[in-house]
């Protein structure tokens, strides 16, 4: 049985990726399970999706604990504990990561002996937020299993995304086949994992918990606004930059309309953006009556003031 786990951020299409890969397996005659894990559905949150495929009946259920292939669509998830990217790696577990860096770099960084394959998905001039990431991940995974043909992958993409219109399908198909072809050298490198017998049912280890007083049993936070410790600035792919020469200093507009309260009145009365926390929604760009706030790509933004801390996991 193939056990495949997808990691991405909300909005990168991991659920769709698991659907496409699952359907592609199905077309090749496999029994299939594909499902995302229930959790926060917001954009940017760590998302999990799973695919199981076998020639016979699948009796396993639930999340995949012993993956044969782990696909990481967003390399910034690796250090996020809540994303559990590296959970339960066996020596044969292959890591496929969307990264422009080399497999050796990742091997050093993660101190991992498992096979690592890097697949840079961003085409020239593209932002980190790719609408085609999911389809490319599914296609690359399909090639790595060695049991899904190019044609049947293409048919699956067209079938799964058909409702989105011809143009969308065509571009997704192009991306999918490019990722499929890019994995030619690694075709079939992911082997099916061993059958796992259900562990014999054991009674839980009971721990007798004494009844605590409410104030001990209920976690309380005794300081205000501790959320600022979480650096949501890393969500951003575009950043708002204030051009003071055009600015009217009407900070009550951009400051009130910013959902995250990250625009305050700074030096000289101009709006000051807290880049440690700005999530990059660009509502301020839309709100500015003088068009003095510009959206610029985060990657290589002038005056590196980007958040440097990884977001803390809840």
């Amino acid at each position, binding site marked *: 049985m193939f056990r495949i786990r997808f990691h991405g951020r*909300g*909005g990168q299409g991991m659920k769709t990726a698991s659907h496409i890969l699952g359907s592609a397996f199905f077309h090749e005659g496999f029994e299939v399970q594909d499902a995302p894990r*229930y959790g*926060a*559905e*917001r*954009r*940017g*949150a760590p998302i999990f999706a799973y695919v199981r495929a076998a020639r016979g009946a699948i009796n396993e259920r639930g999340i995949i604990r012993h993956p044969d292939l782990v696909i990481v669509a967003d390399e910034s998830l690796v250090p996020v504990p809540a994303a559990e990217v590296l959970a339960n790696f066996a020596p044969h577990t292959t890591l496929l990561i969307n990264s422009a860096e080399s497999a050796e770099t990742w091997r050093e960084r993660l101190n991992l002996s498992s096979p690592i394959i890097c697949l840079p998905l961003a085409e020239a001039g593209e932002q980190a937020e790719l609408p085609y990431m999911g389809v490319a991940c599914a296609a690359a995974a399909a090639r790595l299993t060695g049991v899904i043909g190019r044609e049947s992958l293409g048919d699956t993409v067209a079938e799964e995304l058909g409702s989105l*219109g011809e143009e969308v399908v065509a571009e997704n198909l192009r991306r999918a086949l490019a990722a499929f072809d890019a994995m030619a050298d690694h075709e079939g490198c992911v082997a099916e994992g061993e059958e796992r017998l259900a562990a014999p049912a054991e009674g839980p280890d009971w721990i007798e918990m004494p009844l605590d007083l409410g104030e001990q049993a209920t*976690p309380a*936070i005794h300081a*205000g*606004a*501790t*959320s*600022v*410790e*979480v*650096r*949501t600035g890393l*969500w*951003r792919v575009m950043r708002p930059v204030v051009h003071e020469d055009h600015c009217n200093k*009407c*900070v*009550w*507009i951009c*400051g*009130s*309309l*910013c*959902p*995250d*309260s*990250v625009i*305050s*009145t700074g030096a000289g009365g101009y709006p000051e953006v*807290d880049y*440690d*926390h700005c*999530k*990059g*929604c*660009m*509502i301020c*760009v*839309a*709100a500015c009556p003088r068009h003095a706030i510009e*959206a610029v790509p985060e990657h290589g933004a002038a005056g590196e003031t980007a958040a440097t801390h990884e977001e*803390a996991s*809840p």
Partner: protein
Amino acid sequence: MSEPVIKGMKDIPSEHILGAGTALCAGCGALQALHEIYDVLGENTVFVNSAGCMTLMSVYPFTPFRGGWLYTAMASAPAGAQGVRDALDILLAKKRIAPEEDMQVAVLSGDGATYGMGLAAASCAIDRDLDFLYICYDNEGYGNTGNQTSAGTPHASRTATDTGAEGVPGYKKDLFGLWVANRPAYAATVIGAEPLDLARKVEKAKSIKGPKLILALSPCPVGWDYDPMETLEIGRLAVKTGIWPLKEFVDGKVVHTKTPHPRTPVEEYLKLQGRYAHLFSPKRNDALIDEIQSRVDAYWDAVGD
């Protein structure tokens, strides 16, 4: 009622007290409204939060709030608010806290809890004349779990549970109307894209004792399927098209605080959102678009516009 302080945009608090760093989505219309509301309410507020998107606000050990916060199951936030109000009243009566240490109690619920499960608890709290502010962030669906249909989801929009060519067969419940029928001390509809109108209403609600509703339409980039940057434009269009009437119930009557003249066709609002894309492509569904428009027109005709 005290004399209002907020008269123009410049009177809106420039100090933003809601902490950044919450896990809510970029461009969240609910967070936009909530931070504007909180800025007017002030730090001395206990939020009684029922399960929903705002669950993500306060994830131990992080909170964006500076006062109190209590978490409840979906249907029971108004009951939680009763408990907190009673506890504060007892502390006041026993002089364990000074009058200036008293806090306002605010329920924070989404439309799933407000229009559905929590409705009875809210109605009963109004019956008991509980002194609390009920804030509903209405993103017209169960947003936190992937935008399933709620009783606040509008007709013909597409959700995770109504995926057909005609979208949701039902109609958005008139929650404001239900509250008014319950004779609260105050009720108002607001939207984050109109911060001045919102601030004036919250200021008014703050000065009145008894059960009060602030119902905030909350554009949702994920559930409504649009670019987060459009939250503002979609919010403004909700008001300009007349789909989201800004109004308040005070002194026994309903008053509209902003009457769009002339009303922008609803189409302009609908076509910005992916949840209505099936009304325009692959084939334009004039019957449904016209139905939505005629319902909006009928509302304003009845208002006497």
